[in-house]
């Protein structure tokens, strides 16, 4: 079964990874101060410390990584549909 389900499992793994990568609420309330989650880092720098430049630069990196994961997810989903 496992090789046949390969692309399906990969797409589910990528989807869950993406959902937890862009999460903000849970790391904001329960997260530690170091090492910090990236979304919490952006929030603290941009809003509380007033360091807008750090917030924007980190946001660019953050969204690039998230979109890369989303691109690989759509590719895995298309391949899973094609093979099934």
């Amino acid at each position, binding site marked *: 079964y496992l090789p046949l389900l390969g692309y399906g499992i990969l797409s589910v793994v990528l*989807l*869950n990874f*993406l*959902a*937890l*990568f*862009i*999460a*903000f*609420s849970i790391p*904001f*309330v329960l997260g530690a101060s170091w090492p910090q989650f990236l*979304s919490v880092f*952006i*929030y603290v720098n*941009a*809003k509380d410390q007033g360091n807008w430049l750090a*917030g*924007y630069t980190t*946001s660019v990196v*953050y*969204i690039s990584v*998230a*979109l890369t*994961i*989303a691109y690989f997810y759509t590719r895995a989903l298309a391949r899973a549909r094609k093979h099934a």
Partner: protein
Amino acid sequence: MNWLVLGVVAWLILFPVLVVFLYAFATKWFPSHWWWPQEFGLRWFERILTSPNILTAMINSYLIASFATLATLAITFPAAYVFGARTQGGGGRFVQLVEGFSNVPLAFPTITVGIALLPFYSKLGLLSSFMGVVLAHMIMAVPYALRAMVSSFLMVPPEYEEAARNLGASRALILRKIYLPLVWPGIMAGGIFAFSWSLNEFVLILLLGYPNIETIPVQVYQFVGGYYLHPQQAATLGLFLLVPTLALMLFVERTVKSSAVVPAGG
């Protein structure tokens, strides 16, 4: 063996809900010493419902969610008609590009959208206003509503529209009399996904609506993550968010029989 796996998964998912209910209804409970509360009562509910801040927050929360859902449905209904019925998932390059791009906001980190909108909103003067928050919610709620509605439009056979066109109906009449009764479960599913997403949305309101607009998640955060820790009142307030969301999701599961993709939220 099946029941064991099912039991473990159900316990993992429902245990936080149980803890929220216990915190909300227990007037005396010391979780570090006892597994079960000593007394049950409604003390926290009285304390929550007599505070005007929190009542305003609840009304704000549901109003923002309703407006954002209605506006999102108004935008995504024509889009779902084009993606689902007119082109049946195929379509020219432009349509495919737009369809691909309209699913991208699912992958955006919400705080990035909030930070990006902040200077625009302060220039336009929408910074802590109702319409600003509703617009920001619409950006992120569109993919949730669109996915549910497109899958519902794809299930309508195209012969119906062709027959109606042959008999001379205009586009508005076709949409109203043929598509609307057939895709109505999809519209309701998309609307409920967008509504519960908007209800649970925390970051955008924290960033964009700060002094004037407060909703339930922001108030819960002030009980839990700020200077003091009041899990009982946070749980009581969270119950006003949890129970409607669960009820709506149950309703969607019952009415929509097709396999609509359940989106992930954060």
